């Protein structure tokens, strides 16, 4: 391959990355707006409605404010690590988007280890949190980062087991293949055979992103803002951006793993399927993801924060046993090909000619 070809290839990839990241950042901005609006509505308030028509420019105003603010480095802080931490936090949360398929062919990196890569990327973000907490030279930040680290590590296990179940059901680590395995109709999606796994994956996802009701790492009433107390301006904005990007990622992944990703929910229904055939798959995926994003905000508006030992108990003593039990159930389910979800992958398939 000549140098020119390489260069063009490189630019093409950078273009595709921008095509994912720019909408993502905009989505993050408007997720904050949606969150403030929805929580306001659930508390019978109106939420922000002053900047621009109906408040639609509020996130833009917030971004400008954050850009203008000074990045304060506290005295005694390790400056290099302090400034490195937000980057370490945001890089994996953006990198994880590389393997997310937005449509049958619409994926940046169509790897066969997508699931493993996702697990790795979501776990590696914990470094950013720990370094941020340690480099801040602040007790609150350190306590927050330790809480966050132990929480992410604990829920990682339940989440990992949940992903193993998805892997078994889907028969592949490629996210596109997992979605294709759900092809058929809304009843072919994995939310039925994997229902307990879905609930556990979802709750673990909420815990992984440090969202309410699992937001002890930034428990306002105890440790001010947790690991990012000392951050201001754009450095803080990066943490914020990463947290919301993770939320959107978890929502999209839930849609991909359990709700058929880009597949049309009206598939197989006589009149509705032809009527909705023209809608691109990306729209379905984003609609499904939007519902889960709404759920996250809804959870935050509804539940008080868990006590720390309750979080740990839930993660270790409830979620892990349930996932293990369901893995066993799922093994038999797949082996004996109950229902229509796992056609061609049971005992018959192994012993058969195919």
């Amino acid at each position, binding site marked *: 391959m000549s140098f020119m070809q390489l260069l063009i290839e490189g630019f093409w990839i950078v273009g595709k990355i921008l095509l994912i990241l720019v909408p993502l950042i905009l989505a993050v901005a408007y997720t904050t707006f949606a969150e403030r609006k*929805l929580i306001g*509505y659930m508390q*019978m308030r*109106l939420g922000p409605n002053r900047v621009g028509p109906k408040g639609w420019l509020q996130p833009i105003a917030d971004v400008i404010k954050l850009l203008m603010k000074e990045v304060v480095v506290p005295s005694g802080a390790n400056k290099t690590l302090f400034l490195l931490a937000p980057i370490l936090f945001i890089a994996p949360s953006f990198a994880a988007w590389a393997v997310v398929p937005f449509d049958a062919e619409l994926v940046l990196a169509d790897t066969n280890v997508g699931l493993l890569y996702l697990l790795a990327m979501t776990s590696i973000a914990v470094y950013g949190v720990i370094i941020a907490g340690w480099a801040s030279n602040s007790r609150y930040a350190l306590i927050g980062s330790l809480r966050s680290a132990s929480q992410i590590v604990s829920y990682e296990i339940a989440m990992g087991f949940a992903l193993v179940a998805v892997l078994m059901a889907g028969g592949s680590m490629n996210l596109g293949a997992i979605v294709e395995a759900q092809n058929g109709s809304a009843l072919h999606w994995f939310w039925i055979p994997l229902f307990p796994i879905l609930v556990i994956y979802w709750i673990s996802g909420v815990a992984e992103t440090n969202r309410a009701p699992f937001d002890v790492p930034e428990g306002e009433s105890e440790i001010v803002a947790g690991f990012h107390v000392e951050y201001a301006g754009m450095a803080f904005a990066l943490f914020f951006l990463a947290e919301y990007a993770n939320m959107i990622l978890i929502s999209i992944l839930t849609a991909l793993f359990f709700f058929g990703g880009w597949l049309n929910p009206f598939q197989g229904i006589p009149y509705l399927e032809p009527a909705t055939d023209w809608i691109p798959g990306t729209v379905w995926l984003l609609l499904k993801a939007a519902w889960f994003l709404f759920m996250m905000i809804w*959870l935050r508006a*509804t*539940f008080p924060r868990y006590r720390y030992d309750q979080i740990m108990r839930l993660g270790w003593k409830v979620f892990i046993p349930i996932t293990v039990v369901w893995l066993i159930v799922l093994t038999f389910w797949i082996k004996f090909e109950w229902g229509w979800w796992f056609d061609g992958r049971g005992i018959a398939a192994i012993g058969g000619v195919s």
Partner: protein
Amino acid sequence: MNRWKHFFKTYFLTELRAGLWLTWRHLFKRKVTVQFPEERTPQSPRFRGLHALRRYPNGEERCIACKLCEAVCPAAAITIEAGPRESDGTRRTTKYEIDMFKCIYCGFCEESCPVDSIVETRIFDYHFEKRGDNILTKEQLLAIGDRYEVMIAEDKLEDAPYR
């Protein structure tokens, strides 16, 4: 039996779903926000806001420097100095200042005043731009009184039957 009930309640997230249902219903309820500059909540004629010094209809200031308000003020926000007025020798204030940062808007000054001079108006959305602006002088208080006299008189009249 009770244990099983508890078990199912926990694992089927019964109470969590009840909570979610509650917030879901609230999502569509009527919103109670009063959008302040455009909308205002109703006020009582007894509302205790910005202070004012009143005058008689003939233009004479009411205050006779009895210093009852200064004495009753629980926050010691009022400072009065008194002396005979140069033109006619009547007892008047030479200085009448209210520190609005100290004032707790209790309304005791208004209650104690024998000539209804110092009053608290229904104005509450005011601000100070410079340090020192928070101390209202006699001239400023009289000016506020002149400006809002109609409103003050109406409020006093409405409240008169009840005191």
